[in-house]
C-alpha cells in the first residue's frame, strides 16, 4: 500500500510540472528576496552615493548598527515566542548610567560592567516572571518596565550625563581588532551565538514552538514558562551590554540614551521576516533587516537628507516590509 500511495503522490506531482516549477520559484523568492533586495540596494547606493562604498564608511555603518544588531538577536527570540519587549531602550540607558556610576565609585571598570550586566539581567528576569508566571500581557508589562527603568536611569543619574573618569572604559567602544571596532566584533559574535542557539539547540527550537502554539508546546513537554523567562533574561543582559558599549562610545552614561531604540530593533526584526504572530524567525533575515535599516540611514546622512525625513523613510520601509510579508502569507494560504 505504501508503494501505491507514493506512486499516487508522485503521479500527482508529475501531472503538474508547471505548478511545481511555480512553487519552486516562489520558494526561492521567499527565501532570498530580502538578501536580494539588500544586495541591489547596496549596489545602487555604491554607484550613486559619493563616499558610500569606502572602507571607512562601511565600518562606520557597521558601528552605527552594532547596538541595534546585538539587541535584535535577542528580540528575535522574544518575537519568535510570540512575545514583545519594549523595555530594551530604557535598559540600554540605565545600564550605561549604572556602569558609569559604579565605575566611578569603585574605580573599577570591570565592576561597573558586571553591575550593569546584572542589572540588565534582573530587569529581564522581572519582565519574564511577570509575563510567564503572572500571565500579564507582554506589551503591557514591558511598557511598564520601560517607564520604570527609564525613571531609574534619571533618578540614579539625577538627570545628568555621568562622565566616566577611567580611560580604560573608552577603549571598549573605540579599540580595533583586525581592523574592525570592538562593538562590531561583539555584534558579530552575538549573531553567530544566537544563530546557533536558534537553529541548533532545544532552546531555540522550543522558542519557535512556543511562538507557534504555546498550548501544544506545553503538552509536548516544553517548559514554556522557563523558556520565556530565559528569553527575557537574556534580552535584558544583551540590552545592558549594548548600553555599556554605547556609554563607552559616548564616554558617558546618559539617562536619555536609547529613546526609540526598542522600536528600531523591532523594526529591524520585522523587516528581517520575523513574524509577530510567533513561530517564524531566521537569524540571516534579522541580520539583513538590521543592515537594510543601517544602510538606508547611512546613505541618507551621506546625501545630507534632513534627519526629519529619515523618520519618514524608515517608517515607509517598515510598512512595505510588513505588506510584502502579508502578501507572501496570503499566497501561501490561498
Amino acid at each position, binding site marked *: *500500500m*505504501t508503494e*501505491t*500511495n507514493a506512486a*499516487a*503522490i508522485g503521479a*500527482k*506531482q508529475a*501531472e*503538474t510540472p508547471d*505548478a*511545481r516549477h*511555480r*512553487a519552486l520559484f*516562489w*520558494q526561492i523568492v521567499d527565501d532570498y528576496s530580502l538578501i536580494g533586495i539588500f544586495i541591489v540596494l547596496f549596489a545602487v547606493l555604491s554607484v550613486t552615493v559619493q563616499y558610500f562604498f569606502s572602507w571607512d564608511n562601511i565600518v562606520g555603518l557597521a558601528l552605527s548598527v552594532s547596538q541595534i544588531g546585538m539587541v535584535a538577536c535577542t528580540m528575535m527570540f522574544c518575537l519568535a515566542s510570540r512575545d514583545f519587549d519594549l523595555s530594551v531602550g530604557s535598559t540600554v540607558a540605565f545600564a550605561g548610567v549604572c556602569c558609569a556610576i559604579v565605575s566611578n565609585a569603585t574605580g573599577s571598570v570591570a565592576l561597573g560592567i558586571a553591575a550593569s550586566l546584572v542589572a540588565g539581567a534582573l530587569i529581564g528576569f522581572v519582565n519574564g516572571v511577570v509575563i510567564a508566571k503572572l500571565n500579564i500581557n507582554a506589551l503591557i508589562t514591558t511598557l511598564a518596565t520601560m517607564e520604570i527603568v527609564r525613571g531609574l536611569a534619571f533618578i540614579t543619574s539625577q538627570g545628568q550625563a555621568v562622565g566616566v573618569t577611567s580611560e580604560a572604559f573608552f577603549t571598549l567602544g573605540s579599540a580595533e581588532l583586525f581592523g574592525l571596532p570592538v562593538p562590531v566584533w561583539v555584534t558579530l559574535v552575538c549573531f553567530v551565538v544566537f544563530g*546557533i542557539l536558534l*537553529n*541548533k*539547540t*532545544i532552546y531555540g*527550537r*522550543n522558542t*519557535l*514552538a512556543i*511562538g*507557534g*502554539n504555546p*498550548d*501544544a*508546546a*506545553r*503538552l*509536548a*513537554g*516544553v*517548559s514554556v514558562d522557563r523558556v520565556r523567562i530565559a528569553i527575557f533574561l537574556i534580552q535584558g543582559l544583551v540590552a545592558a551590554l549594548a548600553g555599556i558599549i554605547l556609554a563607552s562610545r559616548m564616554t558617558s552614561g546618559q539617562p536619555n540614551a536609547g529613546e526609540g531604540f526598542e522600536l528600531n530593533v523591532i523594526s529591524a526584526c520585522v523587516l528581517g521576516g520575523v*513574524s509577530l*504572530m*510567533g*513561530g*517564524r524567525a531566521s537569524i540571516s533575515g534579522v541580520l539583513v533587516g538590521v543592515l537594510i535599516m543601517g544602510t538606508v540611514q547611512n546613505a541618507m546622512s551621506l546625501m545630507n537628507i534632513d534627519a526629519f525625513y529619515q523618520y519618514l523613510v524608515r517608517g515607509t520601509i517598515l510598512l512595505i516590509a510588513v505588506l510584502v510579508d502579508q502578501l507572501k502569507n496570503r499566497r*501561501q494560504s*490561498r
Partner: protein
Amino acid sequence: MTDAPRLEFRHIGKTFPGVRALGDVGFAVRAGSVHGLLGENGAGKSTMMKILGGEYIPDEGELAIDGQVQHFRKAADAIASGVAVIHQELQYVPELSVMENLLIGRLPTRFGLVDRRKALAWTRERLDALGVDLDPRAKLKQLSIGQRQMVEIVKAILRDAKILALDEPTSSLSHRETEVLFRLVRDLRAQGKAMIYISHRLDEIFELCDAATIFRDGRKVADFDTLEGVTRDQLVQRMVGREISDIFGYRPREHGKVRLAVQGVTGRAVPTPVSFEVKAGEIVGFFGLVGAGRSEVMRVIYGADRRTAGTVRVDGEPIKPTHIRDSIQHGLVFCPEDRKEDGIIGVRSVSENINISARRNHLVAGLFVNDRNEAKVADAYIDRLRIRTPNRRQEIRLLSGGNQQKAVLSRWLAEKDLRVLIVDEPTRGIDVGAKNEIYNVLYELADRGVAVVVISSELPEVLGVSDRVVTMCRGRITAQFQRTEANEADVLAAALPEGASATPIRNT
C-alpha cells in the same frame, strides 16, 4: 424543479505549492436534495467547499448555480449568491450573544442605538419557528460546540441561503444535538434547499443523503445518484481504493503486569476521586457522553491540569503531580483531543512536530540538535504511518487532519521508552482508511507492552479496539466491561446519567 441542477461544479482544478488538491472534479446537486460528499482526509473535500464559499479561487473550471456560471472572488460573492458554507472550524464571536451573532451587521436600531427588545423578539420568533431550543441572550462561549454549530446553521438559514454546505457538522455533537441537526436538515430539504453534507460517518450519509459523490486524491472516483441498494462496503472501498473488511482489525494479545496505576486522583475539573489500572499490553477504552469528564481526568493524570490529590504510578514509580516533563520521562504520554489547539504547532514543519519531544535523547555533545537523526526519524514515521505530505519540511498546518494526527502520534512513538499512551478521541474527523491505520499503531504499541488508554465517544470504536471498556458519567467511573462481556446496550446504559436517557444532554 428546473432542468439545470441548483449547483454544478464543472472540471474544477486547484493546485497549492507542492500539492495538486483537486483535478478535473465535477458533480451536480439538485434543489431539494442532500448530497453526500465522501473521501479520505486530504481527498479534496474541504478544498472544494472553500471554492464553493469563495475562499479559494479555482485554477481551472467553474461552478454554476441554476445553470448560471459564477465567478466568486471572495467570500462575500458566494454569500450574495445564496451560498452558505459551514466549516468544521466555526466562525462566530464568542463574547457576543446568540442574538447578536445572528444579527451581526444588521441589528435593528432605534435612535441610533441597538433596539435590544426588538432584536430579542425577532430572534426568539425565528428560533421557535425553526424549532431550535437556544437562549438568544446566551453568549456563544457559554454554549456547547453543538449549540454553536446550530447558531451557524440558523445564521445561514436567516440569510436565505439556497445552497447550504455542512463540513463534518456532527464530529463534536452529542447524540441529541445530532438528532436536532438531522431534523433541521430534513426540513431544509423539504423547503427545496440544495445541501452538501460532508461526513466520515457512513451511517449518517445513509440516513440523510439522497445522492453522493466520492473523492480520492483530489479526483472524483464515484457518483451515486441514489443510495438505494448501495452498501456500506461499496462506499468504503471506493473511498480508500481497497477493501477494508473490518476497520478495527482487533487482535487479542497477552497482558502483563500493571503499568499505569491511578489512585484517587482529583483536580479542579475532577471533583470525585478517580482510580483505575491499566496493564502492559492492554488497551482500555474510556466511553462516556461528551462532558462526562474523561478528558479532564486524563489531563490531570498527564500533568496538563493541576492534580490536587491522589497518586499516579507507572510501573510502580510515582509521577510528580502537574509535571508534564516528569510524565514524559516516565514514558507516560498524552495525545490531546483538539489537534489544532493543543496538538500541532501549525507553522512548524512536520519534522519539528514529530521530533519536538524525543530530540532531547539525541543531542550532539549534549547541546546541539541532531538534524540528520531527526530527518531520519521524521522520514521513517512519514513512511511507516503513511503521513501524506510533500516532504518532512512542509508546515504541518497544511496537512489534513488525519495526517496531523499521525504526526502527533509519531511524536510519542519516537520516545524510546514509551510505557503508557493516552489518546483522546484519536480518530475524530478522520476518514476510514486513516482510522484503520491509527488502530494498527495502537495494536502495535500494545504488542510491545505499552499500556494504551483510548478515549472515544464513538461506541463502535470503543467496543472495536478495547480489551476492556470503562464507562464514565458526570466525572465518575460507572462500570467496567471485559471485551467478551461488553455490548452496545450495556455500555451505553452505564454511560448515561441514571434514568436520564431521554432528557437533554448538557455539556458545558
